[in-house]
């Protein structure tokens, strides 16, 4: 019994040429996201390990500015994910102007996140926090905090640049709807990582009265 080539291509489990029904860019971004997930998972598990092994892990985050800032940053990042969804949607409907506007709103959210985060870093540094010493307890707290939140902030900054390139291209008639969708995947991933950094690094270290 012979099977036609077209029938094979239609069946993902029979070795169709596009088994996931998506272009290589989108699949590539998903695979990158998996590898980056493992990077952040490793860092957060190392953080948890060091914390469990330390006799006195600092809990320096007062409601204001620490927790309040981090909560607002979470809101900003979630809202920017939503504007990115709207940007991808506009592009899929062929509305390039609206896509550029929504991507611009997403970038604004990213920049606001970085601005708030740096303000919060500065207040911790002003309180005497350094990578290998701090006034509260285990000296490694600073190293893990700055590494995890710093790597995440680097991802946000890279995302803002990435979206800037995409928005500039979209405005000049370049890039396809899939290109915008792929940049959206990256942005949502940066948001997703923060959903774990926020509780593990901030909420578990709330300064309880």
């Amino acid at each position, binding site marked *: 019994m012979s099977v036609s080539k077209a029938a094979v291509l239609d069946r993902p489990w029979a070795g169709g040429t596009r088994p996931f*029904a998506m272009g290589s860019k989108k699949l590539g971004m998903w695979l990158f996201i998996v590898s980056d997930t493992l990077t952040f998972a490793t860092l957060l598990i190392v953080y948890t390990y060091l914390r469990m092994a330390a006799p006195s892990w600092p809990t320096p985050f007062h409601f204001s500015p620490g927790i309040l800032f981090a909560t607002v940053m979470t809101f900003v990042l979630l809202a920017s*994910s939503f504007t990115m969804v709207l940007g991808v949607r506009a592009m899929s409907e062929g509305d390039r102007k609206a896509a550029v506007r929504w991507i611009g709103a997403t970038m604004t959210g990213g920049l606001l996140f970085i601005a708030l985060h740096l303000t919060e870093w500065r207040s911790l540094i002003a309180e005497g926090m350094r990578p290998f010493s701090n006034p509260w307890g285990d000296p490694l707290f600073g190293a893990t905090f700055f590494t995890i939140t710093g790597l995440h902030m680097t991802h946000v900054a890279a995302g803002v640049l990435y979206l800037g390139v995409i928005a500039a291209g979209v405005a000049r008639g370049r890039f396809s709807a899939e290109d915008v969708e792929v940049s959206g995947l990256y942005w949502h991933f940066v948001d997703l990582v923060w959903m774990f950094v926020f*509780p593990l690094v901030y909420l578990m270290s709330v300064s309880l009265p």
Partner: protein
Amino acid sequence: MTAHVPVRPFALVLGLLLVLTVAEVVLAYFHVPPAMMLTALLGLSVLKAGYIMAYFMHLKFERFGLFLLLVPATVFCILLFLGFLPDAGRGMMEGA
């Protein structure tokens, strides 16, 4: 992607994610043992991550094969990392 994607489900997901975030912050001020706190916070975070992946990242609307490619192996790998954690208590058991 279809020609006209409705906005409403995504707005609802955004609202739910904001509510879950507030719930996490409130929870952080409860006086409960760290292990219970960690479980509750991580549980809510996994829920949030699930919604972000399913809706914002469209995983719910892709072929199921993509989910099978990406998620089980990643989750299994992260669970294997957790095997290191019991070792963190070694110093205390030795009275160091």
